[in-house]
């Protein structure tokens, strides 16, 4: 899916959350959004998911604007928030089943895939447990499994690296996101773990006070910061912070 963000602006009252953000995201890319707290990362992800709409500007998905009633378009993307909502009252398996059905991904091979991911993420024993009894990391994994099975064209994830998942869960997520990108899927996620973002992203978007200050490949950022080390993002963010002062 090709996503075009055109001069998107969004404010909450007088506080600007997105300020003339423009970006072009092609298929098969892994994009990491970084920035200070309140920089606009979550708002940009929400805007990409259609949950908030820009006050000005627009976001096009293969040239098509978002509409809440366009279920075909909505099925092409899936957004995992930092605390993904699970359907209270149901079990892990029931939650997964319902999301798969809504995304019309409950084909003949769906059960095998679900069993596979439950096993991989160490959740098989919990499959019949109520979602209320899960720890935060397990809840995130429960929400992640439909994403892995559905494999939508656009993966949107808010702070997946700080989701409470254990190392093996994080490994599964990274490996599958990489594989999905190789299949032409687009992965956009936000994070505060800068070292991980440097290693696990094709492009990095640095948001600062609602502005997308940089949207470049890691190598380009390194060149710009004249820093060959792994701490390039820290250096850029420090630089932005100093500019404010």
């Amino acid at each position, binding site marked *: 899916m090709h996503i075009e963000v055109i001069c998107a602006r969004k404010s909450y009252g007088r506080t600007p959350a997105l300020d003339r953000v423009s970006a072009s995201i092609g298929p098969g890319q892994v994009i990491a959004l970084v920035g200070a707290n309140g920089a606009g990362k979550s708002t940009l992800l929400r805007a990409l998911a259609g949950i908030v709409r820009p006050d000005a500007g627009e976001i096009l998905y293969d040239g098509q604007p978002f509409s809440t009633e366009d279920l075909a378009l909505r099925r092409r993307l899936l957004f995992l928030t930092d605390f993904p909502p699970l359907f209270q009252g149901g079990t892990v398996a029931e939650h997964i089943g319902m999301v*798969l*059905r809504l995304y019309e991904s409950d084909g003949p091979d769906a059960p095998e895939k679900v069993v596979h991911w439950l096993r991989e993420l160490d959740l098989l024993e919990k499959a019949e447990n109520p979602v209320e*009894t899960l720890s935060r990391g397990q809840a995130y994994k429960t929400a992640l499994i439909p994403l892995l099975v559905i494999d939508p064209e656009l993966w949107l994830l808010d702070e997946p690296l700080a989701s409470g998942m254990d190392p093996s869960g994080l490994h599964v997520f990274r490996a599958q996101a990489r594989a999905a990108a190789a299949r032409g899927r687009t992965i956009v996620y936000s994070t505060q773990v800068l070292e991980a973002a440097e290693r696990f992203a094709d492009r990095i978007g640095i948001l600062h006070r609602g502005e997308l200050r940089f949207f470049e490949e890691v190598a380009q950022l390194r060149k710009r910061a004249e820093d060959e080390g792994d701490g390039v993002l820290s250096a850029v963010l420090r630089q932005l912070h100093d500019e404010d002062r």
Partner: protein
Amino acid sequence: MNTIDRRFLLGLRRLLRREPRFRRLDFKTRAGLWGESAKRMLVLVIGAGIIGAAPAIRDFPLPRLASTVVLWLALGIVAGALRQSLERDPHLFVLALLPVSDREVFARQFRKGIVGSWKTFVAVALGFGWATWKSTDSVPNALLSAAAFACVFPPLAVAIAVASLRWRAIALWLHSTFFVAIAAGLLGNVFPSVRHGIAALLQRHGDAIAATFPTGWLVLPWHAWTSDGPHLLYLAALPLPVVLATIPALVSWLRESYRVRDSVLLSAFGEVPEGAPPEFAEAVANASAAPRSRGETTIVDDLLARRFLADQLPAPTAWIERWVWRWWTPRQRLCAGFLSSDWPRWSRHFLVSLGLATTALGIGWAIRTTIRIEVWSEAWLPVWLAGGAVSALIGLPFQSGFGRGFKGIPQGNQVLSPFLWQPLAFGELTFVLLKPNLVRTLVMLPACVGFGMIVAWILEFPPWTGATIALQISLVPLAVFPWTLTAGFRSGLSTYRRSLAAWIAGGIYVLACVANLAGLVGVFFPLVGLAVLPAMALLNLGQLALLRRLLRTGKLDALRPPGGQRTVTTL
């Protein structure tokens, strides 16, 4: 949040920041749903107390029952506030992690619950003062009555509330009297047109019914005093000193058994705040331990058999639920599963309602035939009230009134959550919720019309009068339904968006609220309702369509976190 709470939280935050291990605590708190329902209950108390019981106290045939119901509702508020404070208060999450003894927490939360009920205490005192003034035309009597209730009701309410916290059976008993309270209140309305002879008879039986309420016996001496009734009723006040004397023991008993961490665990749903002491985490793990797994092989077999892809809502067996199920499309059944994991008991509620209405009519008919009653045949109002009461008697518990009938199927804001996070269309959700309403209205309609006609016949009015009012009232929930959906959705929307379209939609919403209110009044006038109802329905459908359009075109933001999820407070 009031000033005391804010000050407390700020102080707590400062305290926590001094303690390194608590610096990065991440607490989850539950929204104060009880607080909301308490506000509604307060409105009920004030409304029922002042409008219902007091001004009509002389002619109303069941003053004791009405007063009893008012006191019962007030008691419910106090018990709810105390339970909220001691078991569900978000502060308990913080307090459970601090080096504070259970006794200290209990003292603070108990005080908070009682102090938080002051409005209820004032409302009760004012309501009964007003009722006394209307009954005796004496200001000193009114003041005396208000003062007496201000002194007696709070400790009595606290005693019963504490007892209900200590012994759950009492709480269940209070809960079970809810339907009886509604039925008794409505029963009183069925006979507003009869005069003093029958009123005396009803009052005699009313005493027995009133005495079954936890507050009934308190009303009896008050009523004897205001109406110069039999002095024997003063004896009903005798248990009062005994109850008051037991309060210290009751409170002490509750305090000794109070464990703040258990209370937190009740609402924690197994969540362990980051950085919590190990014993807390252990206690949470034990409390929320899931049932023992059935074994991997069995689970895999079940998954491969596609059971988890079946409808979340099981196919119902009860007849009304079955009709709804058949009418829903497979996709709508799936959506319904998102909204509720279990069926509301519509069929059962309907039977209960029919039983209540039949009993009320039976009593009315027996009284009408055995005793000579002078009917106010010159007035229209009594028959409309009577028809309305019977319709309500059938309709309210079944249709939605008092929140019983709709239990299990969410409305409004709760449907926003799946709409936001899953590929579900606004229209789909609307139809999922509209169909049960249509079915229930269709089921209810013949019964309401029939009962309305019988009431009219009992009161010697043309049957069509009762049928018309019953029809009008039965259709109200359907006409108002799109508005309730709109209101619910609106309450979940972002308040930041200030487009012109949003302002216009807001203005129309306010107008619709006023129009609906006027329409509800209009329904109680002859034939007006039949014209008013379609207008209300059209207006409400129009604004629902407008909301859908605004959401679709992005003129409004649906930004709130999912309904029913706990909000996150980071200290």
